[in-house]
Structure formats: structure tokens, C-alpha cells
């Protein structure tokens, strides 16, 4: 038997992260779950143990707060005895209408979805480059592909995060580091984040389907992967619609 894959999951209580973690668990991986809800983290840890994970660690922290991310990641990696994959999955959708009027709220949204995520990504990139192997997998969003009135504050943060991860992927590749970075851009996913929206129809994917794509992305592909793939074509069209037409649609 080979040694189990060691994975740090930032935002492990996210539905997409849980679905991804179940694939790792089925392979007997050694997992570290980071998040801010202690009870939920332990619920998820029990599930992953029951599904075959060789061991599961829990790290309770507010990932959205400014911190010495490099030191924190080093501690987490040490708890696993080394790390192979780092998944960043947390995020908040927020209320666009409210955030437009309440600039402090908008700033908080940007801080969680971009600023805090960026600190973890940069720290992870250094760690993986130094050890010369491993994958950083980051969940962005199709919302980052074009600003739309319904969610552009969230979208702007995801666009920024996407550019950051693309840049990290470029850097890791160019330096022949042996490490990789991948950005996943899900479309509509049926998770608590979208719990308030009416569901159904061919555009909606399950967390399980997206989790399968995320798990594969840790091994190969990228640097930008739409989940499911057809969003690449939808967004291609959305990006090229001329503004005079686009601006007549309440997208």
C-alpha cells in the first residue's frame, strides 16, 4: 500500500468541500478539516471516517480573518505529517442589494471572498513550491467572468481570486516546481449557499457532481476548470454579448 494522500481542506463544512472530501475518504486519505463551526466539523469528520478516511483532523478557525497564513498552514501540514493537496472551498454569497447600499457589508464580502482567500492561496503556493510537489485547488465561480447587476460584488471577489490563482498556476509551472494550482469555476450548484433559490432544470448540478470534478482536478488538468464543463461555453457567450444588448437584460 502507498501512503495515504494528505489533504488540507479550508472551509471543510461547505457542501462542495464535503462532497470532494468523500472521494478522498473513499481512497483512504488522511484529511485535515479547517472551518469555524466546531460541531459541523466534527459531524463531517465522523462521516469521512465512516467512509474510509484513514484519519481525520479538525482545525477550528475563522478563515476569513487576517492571520499569519504561512505559519498556520505549516502547523496544519505538520499535523498531517506533510501535505499533498490543499483545497480552498469557503466563501459567502452575501446579499447583493444590501451590500450595494451598505458599503461596510460589501467590504466584508470582499474581505472574506478575496482578501482572506488570497492570503491562504499565497501561503499555500509558497509551501507547495518549497516542497516541490502538491496541488492547490481553489473554488472560484462563473460569477467572476462578467460583472452582472445581480451579484457583482461577490463576482468581483471571485474574479480577483481567479486571477490570483491563474497567476500562481503560471508561476508554479514556469519554475518547473512540480507543484500545481487549479481554479474551479462552478455554475449553479444545489448547496445551502443557493438554498433560497428555486432549483431544478439542466443548469443545476449536485454538490456530488462538482465534488467529483474537484477531486479529479487535484490530480490533473486546469489551470481553469468549469464545473460542469458546459459553463465554459455559456460564459464564452455571456462574455461576448455587447454591452448595449447585455445592459437591457436583468441577468
Amino acid at each position, binding site marked *: 500500500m502507498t501512503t495515504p494522500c494528505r489533504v488540507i481542506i479550508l472551509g471543510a463544512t461547505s457542501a462542495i468541500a464535503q462532497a470532494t472530501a468523500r472521494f478522498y475518504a473513499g481512497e483512504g486519505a488522511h484529511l485535515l478539516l479547517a472551518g469555524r463551526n466546531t*460541531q459541523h466539523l466534527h459531524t463531517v469528520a*465522523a*462521516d469521512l*471516517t*465512516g467512509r*474510509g478516511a484513514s484519519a481525520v483532523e479538525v482545525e477550528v478557525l475563522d478563515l476569513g480573518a487576517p492571520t499569519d497564513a504561512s505559519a498556520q498552514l505549516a502547523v496544519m501540514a505538520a499535523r498531517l505529517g506533510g501535505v499533498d493537496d490543499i483545497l480552498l472551498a469557503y466563501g459567502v454569497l452575501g446579499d447583493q442589494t444590501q451590500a450595494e447600499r451598505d458599503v461596510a457589508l460589501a467590504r466584508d464580502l470582499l474581505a472574506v471572498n478575496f482578501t482572506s482567500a488570497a492570503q491562504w492561496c499565497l501561503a499555500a503556493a509558497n509551501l507547495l513550491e518549497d516542497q516541490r510537489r502538491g496541488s492547490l485547488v481553489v473554488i472560484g465561480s462563473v460569477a467572476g467572468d462578467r460583472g452582472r447587476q445581480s451579484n457583482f460584488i461577490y463576482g468581483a471577489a471571485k474574479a480577483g481570486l481567479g486571477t490570483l490563482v491563474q497567476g500562481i498556476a503560471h508561476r508554479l509551472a514556469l519554475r518547473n516546481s512540480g507543484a500545481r494550482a487549479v481554479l474551479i469555476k462552478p455554475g449553479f450548484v444545489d448547496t445551502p449557499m443557493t*438554498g433560497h433559490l428555486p432549483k431544478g432544470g439542466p443548469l443545476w448540478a449536485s454538490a456530488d457532481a462538482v465534488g467529483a470534478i474537484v477531486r479529479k482536478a487535484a490530480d490533473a488538468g486546469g489551470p481553469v476548470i468549469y464545473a460542469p464543463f458546459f459553463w465554459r461555453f455559456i460564459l464564452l457567450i455571456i462574455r461576448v454579448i455587447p454591452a448595449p444588448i447585455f445592459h437591457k437584460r436583468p441577468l
Partner: protein
Amino acid sequence: MTAFQTTGDVVSWGRVTRGLHRVARPAWPEQVAALAAEAGATPGKGLAIGLSRSYGDSGLNPGGALIGMAGLDRVHAFDTATGILCADAGLSLGALIGLALPRGFFPPVVPGTRFVTLGGAVANDIHGKNHHGAGTFGRHVTRLGLRRTDGSFHELVPSDPLFGATVGGLGLTGVIEWVELRLTPVQGAWLDAEDVPFGDLDGFFDIAAASEGFAHTVAWIDCTQGGASLGRGLFSRGNWRADPDRTVHSAKRTPALPLDAPSFALNALTLKAFNSTRYALKSQRAGMWRTHYAPFFFPLDAIGGWNRLYGARGFYQYQCVLPPPAARDGVRALLQQIARSGQGSFLAVLKTFGPLPSPGMLSFPREGATLALDFANKGDDTLGLLARLDAVVREGGGRLYPAKDGRISAAMFENGYPNLSSFRRHLDPGLSSGFWKRVQS
């Protein structure tokens, strides 16, 4: 803000009953208590549901609230030394197989589809092809966590009366939050199976009696045949193989039918052609062969949304059990009625239930023969035929399976279930269902 959203989208597998529901889908276990309390306090009351693989209205609550439990599917603990697994009630049997088979275990009882939840399996005390040896699903349940709409939580073991009410209790005693059960050890994913054709109903009973050595048995009956060929069919039986390969079923299916098929898709002619070809093809394959568990236990799961073949009006399933003295003549009388009506079903399944007692006050399985058939919904013609079948079942001292039913009368239900009055004492007053409202006299 309420977590319930009003929708007309929830239908059961038979797709006959349409109605508005307020639906909530919890993502974390601690949300259930508040949802149950909120649902229970509304006039339409509440009901927990799983994957809606029940055919009729026992898994619906039109005008009321539904708590969709399928998103609560986390394992609490799995002891691979003993095979005891404890998990949220929303875990599906398919997912359970996916995590347990690689470690040498399989659910103790599986129905004809892997898309059912632990909660649904308990609430209908489901049976499988192995009933004669293993009994019902509930016999393998060691503990249950039950949340009532008054906020109370009950950890139940088989000796508790509330356990006996909850197993087979149609979701009416509370919301099952988690289930602990004993899995069956298996070597691998494969079975040895064979199909034995029989020319008439007596042939079925002879082969059934001679199949004691098989853990899994079921027969397929060609309902379009009358006269001397009445009850002809194929007897399928199998045993787990000592085969170390543990390949789990593929999650891939043919794409679900996106639309309801036009109603002519299933007229009497296509039905006859389908049944005859199937009989001819299958009866040529003699002897034992090695089969993966997926086509053996879940043949229909390969076709996503096959229920839509019955068209926009949906279909009824009819499943009864007749006790041993009435079994042979009763099944013959039922098949005669069906052959005469020309409303033969796409699928007709016949199986003998063994004598192992079912643990639930309202469990459907009892010793005897059980017949299950589908009928496209043609309105009064279909309901008239089903009422004639009811008369035969009643005459024989049998009963119908609520998981499949969407139309029986209170009297027919009461007749079949002598423990109904004991069961009523355990009802959660905040819960109800379409079925339950209908069978209150």
C-alpha cells in the same frame, strides 16, 4: 424567516397525485427539530420524506409541509469488525453500498432500486428478494433516533413499543433522524444466478418450494397470458458468490426521460410484444451465470426516470400479500382479472414471503405470496379493475402495501392491518400524509 418553500414539484414515483407542498431540505442534523416543530404546528401538518420512491400518496402531504431528509446523509460510525453502521436517515442504500462494499458489507435487505433512504426503508419496513431468509429491513435495525414535533427526542431499541410503531410506521410517528443497523458480510460484488421458466402458476409454487437453497428469489409473470398459460413466467434466483472483486455499481445511467412519454407508448399491443419477447429471450438462457449485484437487484435503475414511460397521467402500482391458504387461488384469481381486463402491466412480480415475523405494527410483509403490478392510470377503468382486485385480496385475508398504494379505502386498510389501533396510540399529532388523511374513516 421560514426554511419552507412552497412548490408543486414534489411527486411520488407513480406521478398520479399532484399538489402544493411547503418543503424544507435541512443540510445539518440540528435543523430537524425546529423544522419538525414548525411543520407540526401548521394546519396541514408535516411529513418527513426520503427519495420519493414510494408510488402513491404515503410519501406526500398535499396542502401540508414536507421535510426532505435526503440531504442528511452522513455516516456517524461504521464498525467494520461487526458490520454495525449508524448514519443519518437520508443516506441512500446506493451510497451505503458504495461505502460498505469495498469493506466487505452489503445492506441486509434491498428493494428493487438503490435510490431509497434508510428512513424510507424503515418507515415502509421494506422487503427484498431475500425475505424468506432475512425477513424485513426492520429486523436488522438495532437503534433509531426519532424526533417528534413536540421537540422530544427518542433513542429507540427494538423492544420499545415506539420502535414497533416507527418501523413500517409510514413516517407518522416522528422524523427518523438516524438509523443504526447490522450489515451483511459479503465476499464481493457478484452473485451466481439462474432463470427457470415455468409454464403456469402451479409451476411457480413448485419452483418456489424447491428453492430453499437460494438466498434471493423472485419471479416475473407474463400478465398478458390467460387460459392454460395463465401465470407463466420466469423464476429468478441467486446466491452471493465467493468472488473477491468488489466493484461498486456505476453511478452512470441513461439520461432520465426529460418528458412524459406520450400515452400510446404503453398501449396493450406494445405491452404484449414486450412481455412475449422478454419471456422468449430469457427462457433460452439456461443454467447458472455470474452476475453483478446491480443488474440482479436493481435492473430498472439503469434507466433514469422509467416511471415517465407511463405518460403524464402517471400510473398505479398494486402490491398485495395473500396468506398461504389463499395464496395459490388468490393469485390465480388476480391474474385472471388482469388478463381479462387487457390492462396487463409492464412489470409483474411474484414472490413468496417466509414466516419470519416483521417487527412493525404496520409492516406489510407476512407469510404468503406477494404480487406486484403496474397499471397506467386510465382513470375509472383502472380504478374499477383495482377495486375488483381489492375484493379478491380481502376475500383471501390479504392486505395491500401502503408504499405502493394511492387509492384504497379506510375499510380496506383497516381490514388488512389488525394492529392499527395499537399503532394509533403512537402517532405524532403534528404529522400526516395524503395516504393517512384518506384512510381515516
